[in-house]
């Protein structure tokens, strides 16, 4: 009833091609942005900022990066965490070695470094596909961590290979509180998500999808294979690199190369599989599912054993959480193999017909 586009006429091409063609969507999204930028900083406490929202946004950004490569361009990658590591360590080095370097410029340069490495490790994609490519990107994952641990330069010769993020200062304002770091992360993620959304609607995005759907056909209609695939690797790695930089500078503060191990790559891959492969929104939904659900289960069981007074051994609870988490993943994949984003889309379609479905 409320969600209906009747009476909304489009008189220009621009109006027809905007991201949210339906007015209700635009209003809802504007409300969401206002909530994220204004309401949340007013009501949330530090726990929410530093333990829930900031890591959620950062994982969403990394998932978005992987989604560009895997979801849109169809190149399976297991090296996401390695690109994040490059972003984190290179930002640290730019800040350390170049006096007076603005942090945002460091983020961009670190992202470009990640992109350069991404291009190098994207080269095999010109010859190999699918699972074989995944194995090649696995090499990237191990090689990058190995390099970060074995060349002291990257961690400024710290014995344990751990780096400590410098202060985040933009135009003289120091981002120190959890709320300000959340806002900085949110701003960066919003801008990059908008850029990604526009990119996938552009010629580049269409070329990516053509390569994904059938690369021989794409080549026949004149899409340059090398340029498109390497561009996908570069853009994806850039996003992951910036996410890694934010992970170190706005979230943990101190990171070791091991924090960016294969487990993290898999987690991000699961995020896009659960959220929706080939969907910007899906990256966010998947990140929310994978990062929040375990915490939610932990809190829920904690509250349950507090209130009920049941004396369940904690080792059981921890394992039950994992079992439920796994079961939910399987459940969602069976019910909707295209991810949460597809569920959301179906819900919207149903809503447009409600309350008079034919």
């Amino acid at each position, binding site marked *: 009833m409320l969600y209906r586009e009747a009476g909304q006429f489009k008189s220009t091409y621009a109006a027809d091609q905007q991201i949210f063609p339906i007015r209700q969507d635009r209003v809802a999204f504007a409300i969401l942005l206002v909530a994220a930028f204004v309401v949340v900083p007013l009501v949330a406490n530090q726990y929410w900022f530093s333990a829930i929202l900031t890591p959620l946004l950062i994982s969403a950004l990394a998932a978005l990066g992987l989604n560009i490569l895997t979801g849109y361009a169809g190149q399976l990658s297991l090296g996401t965490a390695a690109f994040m590591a490059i972003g984190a360590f290179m930002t640290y080095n730019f800040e350390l070695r170049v006096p007076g370097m603005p942090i945002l410029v460091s983020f961009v340069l670190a992202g470009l470094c990640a992109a350069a490495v991404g291009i190098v490790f994207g080269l095999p994609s010109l010859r190999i596909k699918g699972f074989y490519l995944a194995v090649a990107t696995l090499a990237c994952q191990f090689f990058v961590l190995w390099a970060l641990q074995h060349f002291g330069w990257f961690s400024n010769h710290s014995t344990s290979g751990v780096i400590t993020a410098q202060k985040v200062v933009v135009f003289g304002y120091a981002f120190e509180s959890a709320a300000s770091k959340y806002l900085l992360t949110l701003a960066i993620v919003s801008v990059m998500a908008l850029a990604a959304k526009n990119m996938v609607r552009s010629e580049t995005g269409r070329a990516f999808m053509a390569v994904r759907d059938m690369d021989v056909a794409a080549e026949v209609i004149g899409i340059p294979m090398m340029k498109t695939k390497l561009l996908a690797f570069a853009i994806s790695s850039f996003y992951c690199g910036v996410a890694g930089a934010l992970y170190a500078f706005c*979230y943990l*503060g101190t990171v*070791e190369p091991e924090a960016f191990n294969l487990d993290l790559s898999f987690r991000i891959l699961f995020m896009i599989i659960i959220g929706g492969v080939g969907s910007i929104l899906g990256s*966010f939904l998947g990140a929310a599912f994978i*990062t929040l659900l375990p915490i*939610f289960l932990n809190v829920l069981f904690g509250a349950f054993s507090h209130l009920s007074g049941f004396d369940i051994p*904690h*080792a059981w609870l921890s*394992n039950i959480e994992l079992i439920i988490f796994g079961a939910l993943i399987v459940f969602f994949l069976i019910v909707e193999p295209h991810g949460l984003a597809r569920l959301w889309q179906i819900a919207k379609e149903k809503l447009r017909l409600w309350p008079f479905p034919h």
Partner: protein
Amino acid sequence: MKRTTLALAVAAAAASFSGGALAQAKEQYVPHNYYWVGPYAPGGSGIAGGAIDYLNMLNARDGGINGVKFTGDKCETEYNNARGVECYERSKKSGPTGATLIHPLSTGITYSLIEKGTTDKIPVVSVGYGRADASDGRVFPYVFPLITNYWSQNTAKIKFIGMKEGGMDKLKGKKIVNLYHGSPYGRETIPVLDAQAKKYGFQVTHIEVPHPGNEQQAQWLQIRQIKPDWVILRGWGVMNPTALKSAQRAGFAREKVLGVWWSGAEEDVIPAGDAAKGYIAAGFNVSGADYPVIRDIQKHVYAKGKGEMEDKSRIGTIYYNRGVVFSILTAEAVRTAQERFGKGKPMTGEQVRWGLENLKIDEKRLKELGAVGFMQPLKVSCLDHEGGGQVKFQQWDGKKWKVITDWISSDQSIVRPMVEASAAQYAKEKGLTLRDCSKEK
């Protein structure tokens, strides 16, 4: 839509969760952020059990510390940095005075919490792990790598080897292999060993075992070629039994394999079976249930049908006892803080920090605690956040760990300058000014 309902549900659960601990004045909140699942669960669950049982024993036996009872919630960190930070953020405001202190029980989580703890004024206590250079309390006011850090332990190991060889001068020309886990934890002692090799004239070879360490054929082939006099095993998890089995296969005497304390629990040797017999490991706590403190836990907790360990045979193992040591330190720090800031009151993190920094556990106090020989005496100060620096060595006889030395002290003439130099580099990078310890009260 889905996201908002999920968020609302989380919020509701979180509210009820923290609402349970509404300001009841006489409670000291200690978060139990450990891990009960994953590849390192044997260590995590054992330590968690010992730590929680000891505090419950104090509550049951003495009614807490001067009437202030310990409370706490368990939070699963999965040995994962992000989960560890989440647990920390969740627990830090609980209870009447917030989190007393935090035992992150993971070097990675410790690193992530150093700055957060300092800002929130909550001490981060990393007993036997974490940053070695945090022993310099001038740079790290809120970080306490208590008892013994990795570097100190390493000097004690070389001392032990010297004793076995018949004097430190006999070390000249000896060959030692450092077989280490490929992680920050594993690499931590390389510079100390190099410094000692120079000082005593032995030859050291560093050989890395990539995580997780269940493939070591190449490494032991190399060791066979080197023919070292000793192998220092700086392992973790599955790497330890694998190393012992590979040593057996390579024909290397297990009596010459010397483990670090994260390589020296029952869980590390039992899977290796026969191959582990004769293996020696360092420890800052010993195993065994025959100490008054453990007997008190049996009497006041387990005899009443309570207690954390389902498998009662794990009481008195290395990991369990290590957890007890963790909590003895927690409780003693709170007691010390109460003596200054008011007996019978719950202490804030800031006050407990003072308690930790002025912690003094001498032989007399150990006797009162029922822990003579169980842990070492220690004295913490503003300069020295380590406080002990001693190690005992124990040998696996095929059935249990047998303590074979007294407390062996470390060589602070090597460790301290390195700690200070490394801490100074950290201070420089972060732009910190050193605390003046003479002004601390």
